[in-house]
Structure formats: structure tokens, C-alpha cells
């Protein structure tokens, strides 16, 4: 503790290393991590839309990259990030708007729910993508 802090009665937040593991902490860290991940993922979204405007050969190139095995793994991570950031983002809106869900039990339960939602919704989206017949060309 440096001299500048002495005599300052305000409580200090605990240092990062002595935080106990809890669900809301993981949800908070993942909200930021998925946010940054989605920023990077938006480059792929942009490439996909812009290539469609450029023509068939550009589109086929980008689409083939997205549908390759590494591409599909990244897309799956992207769906996990979208669904988690979406669910946890709604929780943030409930915190900031109606100020609901602040009690520790509720907050932890919603954190766990958000992770489960992310896994189930991503699995559901990929199941639709694989098994429900879409349009052809």
C-alpha cells in the first residue's frame, strides 16, 4: 500500500488474484471476451456480404472458406459468442433498466442459464443448419 492511499477510508476492491471463482465473475469476463470475439467475427460477416456484391466467384471463395472445417469451427465459436453475448446482454439491460436480478442467487442462476442457453441455442442452430432442408442452388 503506497503512502498515497494511507488515510483514505474508502474500501479498495479486491485485487484480481484474490477473487473467489463464481458464476457471475465468469459471465462478466465472458461477456467482454465474446464482445471482442464478435468484433473480429464481424470481419467475416463483412467479407461474406461484400463478396456477394462482388459476384459469384468472390462469393464462392469466401463461402468455401467459411464451410471448410476450420471455417465451421470458427463459425461455431461465433454462434456460441453471439448467443452468450445476446443472453447476457439482455441480463445487463434488465440490470440497467428495471434494475432486476441483482440478488446474488438470482444473478448466479442467470449466469448459469446464459451459458446453458448459449450451448443449447448454438447446438439448435447448427442442427437446423445440418438437418432441416433449406433452399438449394
Amino acid at each position, binding site marked *: 500500500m503506497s503512502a498515497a492511499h494511507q488515510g483514505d477510508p474508502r474500501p479498495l476492491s479486491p485485487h484480481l488474484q484474490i477473487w473467489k471463482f463464481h458464476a457471475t465473475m465468469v459471465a462478466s469476463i465472458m461477456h*467482454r471476451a465474446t*464482445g*471482442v470475439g*464478435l*468484433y473480429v467475427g*464481424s*470481419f467475416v*460477416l*463483412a467479407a461474406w*456480404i*461484400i463478396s*456477394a*456484391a*462482388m459476384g*459469384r466467384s468472390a*462469393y*464462392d471463395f469466401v*463461402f468455401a472458406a467459411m464451410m471448410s472445417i476450420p471455417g465451421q469451427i470458427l463459425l461455431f465459436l461465433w*454462434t456460441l459468442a*453471439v448467443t452468450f453475448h*445476446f443472453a447476457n*446482454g*439482455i441480463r*445487463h*439491460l434488465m440490470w*440497467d*433498466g428495471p434494475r432486476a436480478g441483482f440478488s446474488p442467487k438470482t444473478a448466479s442462476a442467470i449466469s448459469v442459464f446464459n451459458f446453458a442457453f448459449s450451448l443449447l441455442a448454438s447446438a439448435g*442452430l447448427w442442427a*437446423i*443448419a445440418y438437418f*432441416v432442408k*433449406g*433452399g*438449394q*442452388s
Partner: protein
Amino acid sequence: MSASRYRTPLANARGLGSAKEGTGHFIKQRVSALALVVLVPWFVISAVLSVRGGYANAIDWMSQPLNAIGLLFLSGAAFFHMRLGLQVVIEDYIHKTGMKQSLLILNSFVAIGLFAAIAMAVMKIWIGA
């Protein structure tokens, strides 16, 4: 002995702290989030259902007026929200002034540039259809 000893009475009355702003950022982040609550599920489900199967399907989908305008709304709200979000991340972790300012400027250029490029692509497909 309070810190306000060094501040003018006007600064104390305004009570804005050293940053002078932040409420606007907070509100913008949440209003764009509200738009994305609607737009993101629409896009993800549409993309999964309608856009599989290659170029012709993608063009068909993007040239529907509602889909085209939905994509403009989605990319507008998303890049606006992303720029605000990454700005906070940069401000939290990068403390060297030059690097911080450079990354903040780059963040703005990337977000606005990608939005402009996507908007142009969507308009081209929609008008050209």
C-alpha cells in the same frame, strides 16, 4: 481534507469528475443493444434458414427489400455498438497515450469503414436485383 479543495465551485456543482462525460456513452451502448436484441435473432435465424446453398440463394435473400433494410439496420446498430464496446476495452487496458489514441482512432475507422462497405454492398445487390 477533500479532493475538491483543488476544484472550482463550478466544477463541484457540475460534479462531472475528470472525464466530463460518460452518460452519453452508457446510453448509446444500451440503446444500440435494444435494437440488436431484435435484429440479431432475425439475422441469425434468417442466415441459417435462407442463405444456405450458395450464391443464388444469398443474392435472392439480400435483394428482398425487407432483408436489405434489415441488414442495413443490423450492421449500423452492430458496428455502432461494437465501436463503443471496444473503445471501453481499449481505455481499460491500454494506458500509453500514443498507443491508446492510435487504437481508438483505428477502432473508429474499422467500425465506420466496415459499415460503409457493407451498406454499399447491400445497396448494390438490392438495386441491382
